[in-house]
């Protein structure tokens, strides 16, 4: 827990600090933002994991003014629509974001500071949702594929089995994949695991608890470039790099130990009975030549 807390505080400072690589505007509707973030500290590292680098480094926002999006000219809105099973889509909430235009060799427009406000579920919708839960059917959402001129080419549809959403309330998690002002895809689902025999569980609170993350494409790592190696592409790379030079002892211990033993043996024999020394050595040589006779390791193995 202490570790978690420290992680969180670190993250929190990162959030507050000016030069963050991405904007993950987690707008948590039901509660005061800061309070809720504090209340669920374990979720933050998970979010971090899911999107290691979000918006490209091109974005140059420095200040995070959470409650004063007063620049109405660059503020845009697009709606989220939902459907229960096969019903028609009706409006369910609004995403609002700031449109940032940076002239980086051309007009590059990106969305930042995404906020989401969900409409409260009406009684009919609650009923519908309950029906979905009973029949283990799909809860479907859609957003326009272009945030500026909805619906764009087509709607981005995403679905989830309704039984994956309820926990305390209805927990939902959006990861919106953007390319400029175009929305490519929405990863939509509940917060935790949802293993297959999905249990029917009614939420205690009929309101959505939404988490949204905006994601842009990340840059692929470049191929490593070795200036000195660029020419030797064809064959040279296949060879294993020579291991570093080892010490004399490390290299030849297998020869040195038997040699030492032989010498010791010879010395002791020479001390005991000098006349048998020659015979003993000859025997050793015969043995060696016998071992060297078979050609190739295979035959040696089979002879055994």
């Amino acid at each position, binding site marked *: 827990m202490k570790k978690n807390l420290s992680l969180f505080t670190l993250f929190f400072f990162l959030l507050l600090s000016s030069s963050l690589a991405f904007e993950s505007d987690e707008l948590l509707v039901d509660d005061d933002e800061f309070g809720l973030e504090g209340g669920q500290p374990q979720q933050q590292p998970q979010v971090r994991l899911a999107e290691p680098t979000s918006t490209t480094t091109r974005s140059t926002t420095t200040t995070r003014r959470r409650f004063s999006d007063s620049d109405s000219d660059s503020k845009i809105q697009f709606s989220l629509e939902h459907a229960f099973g096969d019903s028609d889509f009706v409006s369910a909430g609004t995403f609002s974001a700031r449109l940032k235009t940076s002239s980086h060799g051309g007009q590059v427009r990106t969305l930042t500071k995404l906020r989401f406000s969900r409409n409260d579920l009406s009684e009919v919708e609650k009923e519908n949702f309950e029906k979905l839960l009973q029949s283990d059917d799909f809860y479907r959402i859609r957003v326009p594929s272009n945030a500026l001129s909805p619906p764009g080419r087509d709607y981005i549809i995403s679905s989830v089995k309704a039984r994956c959403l309820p926990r305390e309330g209805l927990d939902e998690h959006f990861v919106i994949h953007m390319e400029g002002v175009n929305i490519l895809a929405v990863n939509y689902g509940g917060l935790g695991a949802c293993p297959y*025999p999905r249990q029917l569980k009614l939420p205690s609170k009929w309101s959505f608890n939404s988490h949204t993350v905006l994601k842009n494409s990340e840059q692929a790592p470049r191929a490593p470039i070795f200036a000195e190696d660029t020419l030797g592409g064809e064959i040279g790379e296949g060879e294993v790099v020579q291991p570093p030079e080892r010490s004399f002892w490390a290299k030849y211990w297998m020869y040195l130990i038997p040699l030492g033993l032989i010498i010791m043996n010879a010395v002791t024999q020479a001390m005991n009975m000098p006349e048998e020394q020659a015979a003993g050595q000859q025997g050793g040589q015969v043995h060696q030549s016998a071992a060297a006779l078979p050609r190739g390791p*295979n035959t040696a193995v089979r002879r055994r």
Partner: protein
Amino acid sequence: MASRVFLVVLLFLLCTSLSFSLYEDQVGLMDWHQQYIGKVKHAVFHTQKTGRKRVVVSTEENVVASLDLRHGEIFWRHVLGTNDVVDGIDIALGKYIITLSSDGSILRAWNLPDGQMVWESFLQGSKHSKPLLLVLINLKVDKDNVILVSSKGCLHAVSSIDGEVLWRKDFTAESLEVQKVIQLHDSGKIYVVGFSGSSQFHVYKINALDGELLKHESATFSGGFVGEVALVSSDTLVALDATRTVLVTIVFKDGEIKFQETYISNLVGDTSGVAMILPSTLKGTFALKINTLMLFIRVAGEGKLEVVEKVDHATVVSDALSFSEDKQAFAVVQHGGNKIHLTVKQGDDWNSDLVKENIELDHLRGNVHKVFVNNYVRTDRSHGFRALIVMEDHSLLLVQQGKIVWNREDSLASIIDVTTSELPVEKDGVSVAKVEHNLFEWLKGHLLKLKGTLMLASPEDVVAIQAIRLKSSEKSKMTRDHNGFRKLLIVLTKAGKIFALHSGDGRVVWSLLLPSLRKSEACDNPTGLNVYQWQIPHHHVMDENPSVLVVGRCGFSSNAPGVLSFVDAYTGKELYSLDLAHSIVQVIPLPFTDSTEQRLHLLVDADRRVHLYPKTPEAKSTVEQEISNIYWYSVEADNGIIKGHVIKSKCIGKGADDFCYDTGNLWSIVFPSESEKIIATVTRKPNEVVHTQAKVSVDQDVMYKYISKNLLFVATVSPKASGAIGSVDPEESSLVAYLIDTVTGRVLHRMSHHGAQGPVHAVFSENWVVYHYFNLRAHRYEMSVIEIYDQSRAENKDVLKLILGKHNLTAPVSSYSRPEVVTKSQSYYFTHSVKALAVTLTAKGITSKQLLIGTIGDQVLALDKRFLDPRRSINPTQAEKEEGIIPLTDALPIIPQSYITHALKVEGLRGIITVPAKLESTTLVFSYGVDLFFTRLAPSRTYDSLTEDFSYALLLITIVVLVAAIFVTWVLSDKKELREKWR
């Protein structure tokens, strides 16, 4: 000495290379290679005094080949690129083959004896027009034949010696559509005739030597023309008017153009149907096709037409062949039962039969599509004729003296899809002993092998050993083997013919021209799509045969009605076929079988409705149990949309039956059309087996692979960059790689490569994907790898947790759970461009993987997956080295020994298929294009079996000798002991 040095070098290379390679004497032991050319389009015979008689053909696979007329073997062959379609072929100067290709823009000359290219010239032009090739026969200028090419709105005259363009006449200003170029007899003058607009007819008289325009006449025909023309004589043409009901005879003699109209209804009573003039070069006669009827119409003097003969549409006529001074001949081929009737007729006399032969076909080859006739001088100095016949199944027959001299199964050059089938189990009743050698032979063979091992063999023995190894009857037996090396490769070809090839030696076990994929009145353009395993008997292996499902459709568009055909995999008989009312867009083999072990398949039609096959109540109940768990996706590449679907309810409305389901859209991903265009989508092979779910890294850390069958790799490029390489600026081009879960539509990973461009080739296996593309900034090809790991199970490392059961390893994995994944990726340069990419598959997935790369040189390169490890670092630690991590390099190595095709080429390589053998270490690789190549690969060497050349005899002899020695020494020691005691 030199050979020893070579051996040492070879040994050294083998030690350094990390991959598998062959010894010279192992070539052909477990691999085979077959060469094909494809369906013949044009043929020119060359029977001049050169000793060998040959025919030069060009085919629909863009092959130019020279074949032996006696045996049908290939002397030489050139596979032009896929976009380099051959338009015409001819012989110039008696020694050059001239080919016109790429829509009339490339003219090449090949040396006839050896196929070397002599020259090549590119013809310029602005607009598209019908390409025509004409080699002027009698016109010799300094021993040079002039080649006339009409293409791209121009007429080019090209020297046949060096391919230089002599002159060029541009007709674009007159907007002339050139129809024919006619050579006037024995003069250097040519006629160029054609239409401009719809009704204006032009005749140009041109001096062929310098391109000087001698005369130009034109006349207007009020009825208009459709652009089909038959040349009847050097000054008479027959054309169809715009309504296709009137034949117009055009005579352009002495500077005036005369039209004469004849109503088709006057010639034939019944004229319902569209009339077409067929291209032919008969003198005085032309062929007209109305529906299934073919008419031969002679142009009598003064433009009068008379019908010579009416035949059915299956009749084929050859071009005219002049065989002696002024005589011309042509061949007519007609069908009758399983016989074809070949008639060679003389010149304009329809009733004179020079040759009349009946040829019996051994098995069904369909209709005759083309015939080429050639003459020769018989032993009695009379004229003989032979014919080269192209059949409906793309096979090529040479017919002479009423017999088929040779045939070539050239539809194998156009394989569409491949599947495999196990061979029959060895039955007790069937004796296999006859193929075994007798005991003496067996012993002799092993003694030879023994000699070889002990290096005592003489050169003759070595040859004998090699012959024994190559001939080994073991590999071509028609029964299942213990190691699973022997299989049937079932291939579907473009001709609608299905073949079963034996994996041991590549011979055709059976072949079948599918009746349901043949052109008929109901089905105009049948095309084969895929072949699937339909029924694999496990319970009744002994008495039931497996069968395959062939999926096709009637026509080229995706909403054409589908055709299903079920074929017995052992006998090659069509069991039954179905003409479907709905179309087939996608086929989903389900992981369920019914009680007869037929695999259930879902067929998706163009209206996104799903049809279940087989249509049995049992199959229906099986599917309906699992209906909520069946998801699939569709890729609309032109639209840039990927959609996920789920089955909703029973069909209602037209064509609804009990086995039809309506579907609903579950998710969609829309790529912005201005910045991304889908160019590649790849999924995992459904039959792939993953052995280990976790990867243990150096520091005893465990990474869990994210293994999901529902992952889709998608590559998109910016629309500007979808053209050829180099056509776009690096700044404007980018490639984005996606990993998408196809159940929920979640994008799990998204990564962009700036300055990269397609074409993208990719392969997906286990938890990684490797893709190949072009890097515009580095001016090189690159290969990237993405590995995806599951983070949600990362906490299972704790042993204590495992003991206490607090792990989630046994928890079912669901796509609806929020994915917590991490990806690792790395890019490497790769020298070659790639035609196909595949990965080795083994039975249990234990053996390490190799990537199989079909290179631009039509070879297959095996590259260890370890080279494409994202964890490679510049200086791996000792522990990392032990794990097998290779130091980081910027480029992937190409080790010459790791070409699995060794010295061979798979011309026109299009696909690589890998099939696991039963032996874990081994995988079977089949690569196809115009050629076929099959081999067996062991990516980590055959660690689980003895090699084939292991000498069992040596082992036996050693044991015997040892036992004998034991006895001898025992006796000796006994005696010695006795002596000791007596002392």
